[in-house]
């Protein structure tokens, strides 16, 4: 194949998807990409989550490694300025010149700013890029009031952002209703009521005539009737295709903008193609990402000689705006001739649902849902696949427990499950056939539910149904001994006040137990009753490390980690650590959690070492347990020039409060003294970051193999509220997580996500907050240092003998020296040094 030069202008969502589709094919292009924004593609659909804590990295759809790997030249921060179609040459606005054989325009669209006088005053913004959001956030600091001009989908998203930034928020809409494209009049009305109830003021049928200097605020908006003062304006009055380049070089442009394309995304110049929001297909612009992705896939195929045409796209949407669920499917306005409607409205529960049905009531043409979108997925399947409606179509939207269920089995193989990435039920089944038997694997393989996530429930249903059909039993039983999940066991133990494994096994299990259920039950028993873990009735349940209250290393020796709360230690105690390490010849290393790890202790040495440590005032650090590990801290306001709160005192308080708390997996925390975040709190299960007004609480972060940024859970908390939320959060996690499930994975599997979690913890939506707090208090009140107790318990100490019938240590634990300390001898070293180096 001959190498052809391909230039792509724009590295937004669609441009990036196009590159991915193309490199996945066996192509032979030399690719150059002009990317006007300072960073490569990010997830614009999730843009608003930036305000609730998602970082630039979280939103990133790609990274520089991708471009390197595929030898794609990426030019960031430079816009293409002109296209010379005769020379087939693109010139950038910083002078870069690139020739092409084929050119792809993926320039997206730009927000339309109505040319009213004053639109260019300061603190007037649009809402499209990360940069826009940064400006809005920075400006919000000095503002009290904000106005969004435009009451469409994006406008309402912007309104939520302003409200979350703490501004009094108004939405100005020119049309008589909100979301006029997607909703009918009644739906728009209900949406408005709901949004107003949340404290956002809505003004419909209102045209802004000019923006001028205000008296009580920065600006004054002048309307035909009345006026409004505000400090900030965000324009969201629609989008326009970014077609200037195409216009300038004479490509055919639609009457109202957009580069005209055919079914192969080809423009009026056969060497130039357009995809995404800039493209105009059959006089239509598609302002959603899914159709753009479809164009990207079709064009990549076309360029590689596989000619599947683009054939339009479904524009149905489901979203949550300011916490109000809204869905719109197909012909929402009932424009199809002869169509009929079914409406269900409940002004007490606050929902409105409308079906648009064909004349003989057999097919669903469209729907509007406000206040409750639980039927959306099912309705969409009816509409997209032309499924036969039940005899009484209204039953589909009636709030009843026994409404007709559309089993996923009823869906044809071509039914589209994930519209963002065009994944059909058939494709999912194929992937399952090929071995993807978990949601994670399925998502990676097919991309289903990887963009907006709206179809996650359906994907799960398809997976479950398919596995069941194949005879794979889908259960969440912890192991063969208990037909319960960890959550189920927790419940049994708590409710029936079960205090030992044998009791649980007798009443609810079978067989003898194993290394899966025993440690899991031991952990639950510890979380519930906080009994001594080396009690004879518990000791046989403990996992490797809990077994001897130390961390087993590969040679059979142990490491010892005393607790150093908040990482603060007196010189005297630090010296003790050194002395103990010296006395027992322990390899010494500083950990990432601001503690000291002492390696190479034999079983029988552990009680001796701990005798010395306890005498010096140290306590167990629980490094061996699925329990609270460390609370890392920075020096905070006490020493640091930037600190705004005393992060060390808070960290020590938190560490001492939760020390010894057993949980489904290890727990790590950190407290930073200001937003510079030197303690890396956002990579912890619980992260606390000081603000001028108090503390921001982050949850469910994770370092390690699969890093995950913690999410902002609540802001500006006082000490007491912060602790209360952490109490509830931890106990809720302990109650509901699976065995060995870190908070990050637990959170990703929580239906309802962060909002649900906030509801449970902050608003006490399940009515269990008081109970969670009491349980936590119970654990805190019964804390004893396990090591202190062990060295005083002659029965427990018996187990620390090396052999039942001999007190001489295991001679096969052998060390050699390296960099002034010992380390385990390798197999080939052992034979040689055994005689000289036994310690």
């Amino acid at each position, binding site marked *: 194949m001959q190498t052809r030069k391909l230039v792509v202008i724009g590295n937004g969502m669609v441009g990036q998807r196009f590159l991915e589709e193309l490199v996945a094919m066996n192509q032979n292009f030399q690719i150059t990409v002009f990317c006007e924004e300072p960073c490569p593609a990010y997830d614009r659909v999730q843009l608003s989550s930036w305000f609730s804590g998602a970082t630039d990295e979280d939103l990133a759809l790609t990274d520089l490694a991708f471009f390197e790997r595929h030898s794609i030249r990426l030019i960031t921060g430079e816009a293409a300025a002109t296209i010379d179609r005769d020379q087939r040459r693109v010139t950038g606005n910083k002078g870069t010149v690139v020739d092409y054989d084929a050119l792809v325009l993926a320039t997206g669209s730009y927000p339309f700013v109505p040319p009213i006088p004053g639109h260019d005053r300061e603190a007037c913004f649009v809402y499209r890029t990360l940069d826009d959001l940064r400006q809005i956030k920075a400006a919000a600091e000095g503002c009290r009031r904000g106005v969004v001009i435009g009451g469409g989908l994006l406008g309402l998203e912007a309104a939520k952002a302003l409200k979350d930034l703490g501004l009094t928020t108004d939405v100005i809409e020119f049309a008589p209703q909100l979301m006029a494209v997607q909703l009918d009049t009644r739906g728009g009305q209900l949406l408005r009521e709901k949004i107003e109830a949340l404290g956002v003021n809505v003004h419909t049928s209102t045209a802004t005539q000019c923006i001028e200097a205000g008296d009580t605020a920065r600006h004054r908006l002048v309307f035909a009737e009345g006026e409004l003062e505000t400090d900030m304006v965000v324009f969201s009055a629609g989008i326009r295709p970014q077609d200037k380049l195409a216009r300038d070089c004479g490509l055919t442009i639609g009457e109202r903008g957009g580069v005209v394309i055919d079914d192969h995304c080809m423009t009026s110049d056969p060497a130039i193609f357009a995809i995404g929001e800039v493209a105009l297909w059959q006089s239509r612009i598609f302002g959603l990402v899914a159709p753009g992705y479809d164009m990207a896939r079709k064009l990549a195929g076309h360029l590689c000689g596989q000619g599947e045409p683009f054939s339009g796209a479904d524009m149905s949407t489901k979203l949550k705006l300011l916490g109000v669920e809204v869905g719109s499917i197909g012909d929402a306005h009932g424009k199809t001739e002869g169509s009929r409607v079914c409406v269900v409205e409940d002004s007490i529960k606050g929902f409105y649902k409308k079906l648009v049905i064909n004349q003989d009531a057999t097919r669903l043409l469209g729907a509007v849902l406000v206040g409750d979108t639980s039927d959306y997925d099912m309705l969409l399947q009816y509409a997209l696949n032309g499924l036969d409606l039940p005899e009484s179509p209204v039953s589909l939207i009636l709030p009843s427990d026994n409404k007709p269920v559309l089993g996923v089995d009823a869906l044809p193989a071509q039914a589209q499950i994930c519209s963002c990435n065009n994944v059909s039920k058939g494709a999912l089944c194929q992937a399952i056939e090929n071995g993807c038997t978990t949601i994670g694997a399925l998502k990676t393989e097919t991309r289903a539910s990887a963009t907006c996530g709206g179809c996650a429930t359906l994907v799960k249903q398809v997976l479950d149904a398919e596995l069941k059909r194949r005879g794979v039993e889908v259960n969440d039983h912890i192991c063969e001994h208990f037909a319960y999940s960890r959550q189920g066991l927790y419940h049994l133990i708590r409710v029936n006040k079960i205090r030992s494994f044998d009791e649980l096994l007798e009443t609810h299990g079978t067989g*003898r137990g194993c290394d899966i259920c025993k440690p899991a039950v031991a952990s639950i028993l510890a979380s519930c009753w906080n009994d001594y873990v080396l009690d*004879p009735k518990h*000791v*046989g349940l403990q996992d490797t490390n809990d077994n001897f209250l130390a961390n*087993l290393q*590969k040679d059979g020796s142990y490491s010892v980690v005393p607790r150093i709360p908040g990482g603060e230690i007196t010189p005297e105690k630090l010296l003790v650590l050194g002395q103990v390490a010296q006395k027992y010849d322990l390899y010494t290393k500083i950990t990432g959690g601001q503690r000291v790890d002492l390696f190479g202790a034999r079983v029988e040495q552990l009680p001796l070492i701990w005798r010395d440590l306890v005498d010096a005032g140290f306590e167990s650090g629980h490094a061996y347990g699925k329990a609270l590990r460390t609370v890392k801290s920075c020096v905070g306001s006490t020493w640091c020039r930037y600190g705004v709160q005393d992060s060390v005192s808070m960290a020590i308080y938190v560490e001492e409060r939760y020390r010894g708390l057993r949980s489904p997996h290890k727990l790590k925390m950190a407290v930073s003294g200001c937003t510079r975040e030197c303690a890396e709190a956002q990579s912890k299960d619980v992260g606390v970051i000081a603000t001028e007004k108090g503390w921001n609480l982050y949850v469910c972060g994770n370092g390690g193999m699969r890093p995950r940024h913690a999410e902002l859970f609540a802001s500006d908390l006082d000490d007491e509220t912060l602790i209360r939320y952490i109490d509830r959060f931890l106990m809720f996690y302990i109650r509901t997580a699976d065995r060995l499930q870190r908070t990050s994975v637990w959170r990703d599997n929580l239906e309802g996500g962060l909002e649900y979690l906030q509801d449970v913890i902050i608003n006490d939506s399940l009515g269990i907050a008081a109970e969670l707090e009491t349980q936590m208090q119970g654990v805190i009140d019964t804390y004893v240092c396990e090591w202190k107790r062990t060295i005083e318990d002659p029965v427990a100490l018996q187990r620390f003998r*090396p052999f*039942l*019938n*001999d007190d001489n240590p295991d001679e096969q634990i052998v060390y050699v020296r390296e960099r002034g300390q010992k380390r385990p001898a390798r197999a080939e070293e052992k034979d040689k040094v055994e005689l000289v180096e036994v310690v």
Partner: protein
Amino acid sequence: MSQQMEAAAVQRSDWFDIADLDQIVPGTGAAARLGKEQVAIFNTRDGIFAVQNHDPFSGANVLSRGIVGDIGGRLVVASPVYKQHFCLRSGECLEDGSVRLQTFAVTVRDSRVWIAAGE
């Protein structure tokens, strides 16, 4: 304290007195010496079992510290290092049929545990 044993004294099917049974907490294991060898002895509801203490996968002498239980009806101990399961009766590794631990005959006389050296 129990007697120490000289390797030379160990002969096929000689029985050795190891320890009081109540020194092994029910449901757990403990290590003992048998001449040059190390044995892991388990005190389970289904009886007393003994296998080599040496974990063939990690090379460490740690099997006595594993969790005991049953898998598919077979009594097992799980290695505390890499978690393979070994049948307490036959010594067979459930994950890798080519690996088999040495097993030892055990008996309890007058509340003391005795182990037979050799096969």
